[in-house]
């Protein structure tokens, strides 16, 4: 399965950096796809079989763009022996490569003005714009200086004013956009003495390049560099040797904006899906807490109920026991009373008998005394 398709699938199934179909579509539309189809967009064809490495283009470029120019004069051919790259001081350089026969091959380097520019899609302040006319232009008033354009550029073209403190900027070829607006050709093309540089509409330049390859079999490798690379560039190259040998990177037809569109397309998915899942997770947690809280509460109340039932039973027993005790005590008291009454009666009787034995006259008094004692015994027994 193609990896991007896999990513799409992952996006649908809730993956992280995956892309929805609409995400990819939108992110592509946001790049320069609409500009791509402008048939009138201009470009330059560099035919390295015609280039003699005179460096007049470098000079013209420095003049047009108001650059200081190099330390060594432009006619110093020894400069060509070391590899150079475009810089803040010179937006274009010509390098010499061994080639196949005795004759070296020269190739000019500058911004290729991609149809779907990496720099424009990478810039987080939209400082780069792909104009419908062809040039990729830079707005220095917006640039923050993050240098992500330099990371993203597949040709490593933009350069930076590292030594400026207050207003460092990104520098690169403008395809002489201001001159094009005046109806002029780019500075480098105008000055080229051999016709190695050809300015025109990109579509027409492609036809010319194809014709050159067809007309002179064996003169060129059958590849127009820039026709398909990273979605096509407005600069096109013909070479007698494979383009890698001229230091041109081997690149896929996939444009840089397409490479990041999947990840960017996943943003709305994350923003949509994550709150649902996370709130869900939180809700589940809450519910679990609530259920466990309820379970805990019901367990507590059950335990309490059990405990109070046990308490009630004990209380009942205690009360019963108390009642029994009271009954027992009462019965005992009754018995005691009866015994006391009986004893008192017996005592009184004995006293009566003794009195009757001693003197007949005191009989009545002895009987009274015995009745008193019996009464007191009853009273005592009732109270006890």
């Amino acid at each position: 399965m193609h990896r991007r398709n896999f990513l799409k699938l992952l996006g649908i199934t809730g993956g992280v950096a995956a892309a929805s179909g609409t995400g990819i579509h939108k992110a592509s539309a946001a790049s320069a796809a609409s500009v791509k189809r402008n048939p009138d967009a201009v470009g330059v064809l560099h035919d390295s079989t015609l280039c003699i490495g005179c460096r007049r283009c470098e000079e013209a470029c420095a003049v047009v763009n108001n650059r200081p120019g190099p330390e060594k004069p432009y006619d110093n051919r020894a400069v060509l022996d070391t590899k150079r790259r475009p810089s803040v001081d010179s937006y274009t350089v010509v390098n010499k490569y061994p080639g196949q026969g005795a004759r070296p091959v020269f190739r000019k380097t500058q911004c290729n003005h991609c149809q779907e520019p990496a720099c424009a899609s990478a810039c987080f302040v939209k400082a780069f714009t792909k104009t419908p006319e062809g040039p990729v232009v830079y707005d220095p008033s917006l640039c923050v200086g993050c240098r992500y354009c330099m990371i993203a550029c597949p040709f490593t073209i933009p350069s930076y004013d590292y030594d400026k403190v207050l207003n460092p900027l990104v520098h690169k070829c403008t395809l002489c956009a201001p001159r094009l607006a005046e109806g002029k050709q780019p500075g480098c093309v105008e000055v080229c003495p051999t016709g190695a540089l050809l300015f025109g509409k990109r579509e027409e330049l492609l036809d010319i390049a194809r014709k050159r390859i067809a007309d002179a079999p064996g003169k060129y490798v059958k590849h127009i560099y820039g026709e398909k690379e990273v979605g096509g560039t407005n600069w096109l190259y013909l070479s007698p040797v494979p383009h890698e040998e001229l230091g041109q990177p081997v690149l896929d037809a996939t444009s840089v904006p397409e490479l990041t569109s999947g990840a960017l397309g996943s943003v709305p998915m994350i923003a949509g899906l994550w709150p649902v899942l996370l709130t869900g997770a939180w809700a589940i947690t809450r519910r679990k807490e609530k259920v466990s809280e309820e379970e805990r509460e019901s367990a507590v109340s059950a335990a309490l109920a059990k405990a109070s039932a046990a308490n009630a039973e004990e209380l009942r027993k205690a009360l019963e026991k108390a009642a029994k005790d009271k009954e027992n005590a009462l019965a005992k008291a009754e018995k005691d009373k009866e015994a006391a009454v009986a004893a008192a009666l017996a005592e009184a009787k004995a006293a009566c008998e003794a009195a009757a034995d001693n003197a007949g006259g005191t009989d009545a008094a002895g009987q009274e005394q015995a009745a008193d004692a019996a009464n007191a015994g009853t009273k005592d027994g009732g109270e006890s």
Partner: protein
Amino acid sequence: MRGLIRKLKTLPIPTLREAVDFGRDTLLSIPRTPGNYLTAAILLLGGLVTILRFTIGIGGVTNLDDANPWGIWIAFDLLCGVALAAGGYTTSAACYLFGLKRYHGAVRPAILTAFLGYAFVVIALHFDVGQPWRLVYPIFLSQGTTSVLFEVGLCVFIYLCVLFTEWTPAAFEWLDGRFAWFDGFINWRKIRNFVVRLTIPLTILGVILSTMHQSSLGALFLTSPGKLHPLWYSSFLPVFFFVSSMFAGLSMVIFEGGLAHAGLHDKMDQAHLDSSHEVAFGFAKAASFIMAGYFCMRIFDLAMSNNWAYLATGYGILYLVELFGFVIFPCFLFAMGSREKKLWLVRFGAVMAILGIVLNRFIVCLIAFNWQLPSDERYFPSIMEVIVSVFIVTCIVTAYRLICHFLPILHEHPDYKDAH
């Protein structure tokens, strides 16, 4: 300095005295330990390089050039900084969303670390970008919505605000009743309670934003299949960055827990001390699972891109060292440590995992980036770049120590025992 402090202390205005008088602590009462001397030296040195950076420009202090526009200020300060500050979202999500309440004591320190981490990421960016005074442009002036970096910037900006808000209750608790002139018109307790009520939405927002920008940091390099070595270039880079940020955050919480115990033990209350070991073991267990999954994803990716042949090269050895030495090995340490309840194993695992994250971000951003360039065109950081990065880390540690010294981070505020 002494004179200045003495002057400040004798100022007759009572409110100003109140403002500079945090109890009895002044600059002079900082203990004169070797660590503090080292801190002071680094801060001084960093200050000097800062002055240089803003007087002679980026070119004067860095080894950056047109082919190597990003150095350690991006690889370490931004990429590692953001990944290692992931403890904020992982801890708060674990505690508040996934109901792991026993990690409660870890939330405040993790949020503070994340906030400081992000704050200093932004400060470090002021060194790196050419015109730092324009850093607000992408948010307020000209939105480059097709840029992955725009997404990173916007998410980091919003997340910084979220983290700051999540952190404020600690500050409000500290402010409550401290300064007399606020009394009467600001009710700190009320504000604090309001912010605390926002915890759940803020946590969810934090996880969303973290998912986005952690993965987008990986997506930054999707633009460069021609420059990044095939062993690391993958359309899954965003997923790798996000998943690795999870265990980076967990490892940082474990690691920091160890450091804080060594340095700020007296600031911890019993609740924090009791839970901290449990936090370490729980996080280690989680991290070991995530790392095992991450390892499998990396291997699957290797298989899907059919990059096996590269394993026999020098970069292949680096790849294997990264994956086995700094992913599977710490994963094993975490698993062992959490099972056997061995704190030293878990802490060792955390250190290895953190080193692994740093290694991974360095590889993607620097070591395997521009791998096809001849060695004399490759980048190596200048001493001043290293000083700035060390300076930033020292600033974070110092700020953390200061805040933990004053605010209720590692202990609960006596007046706010309920729940934070």
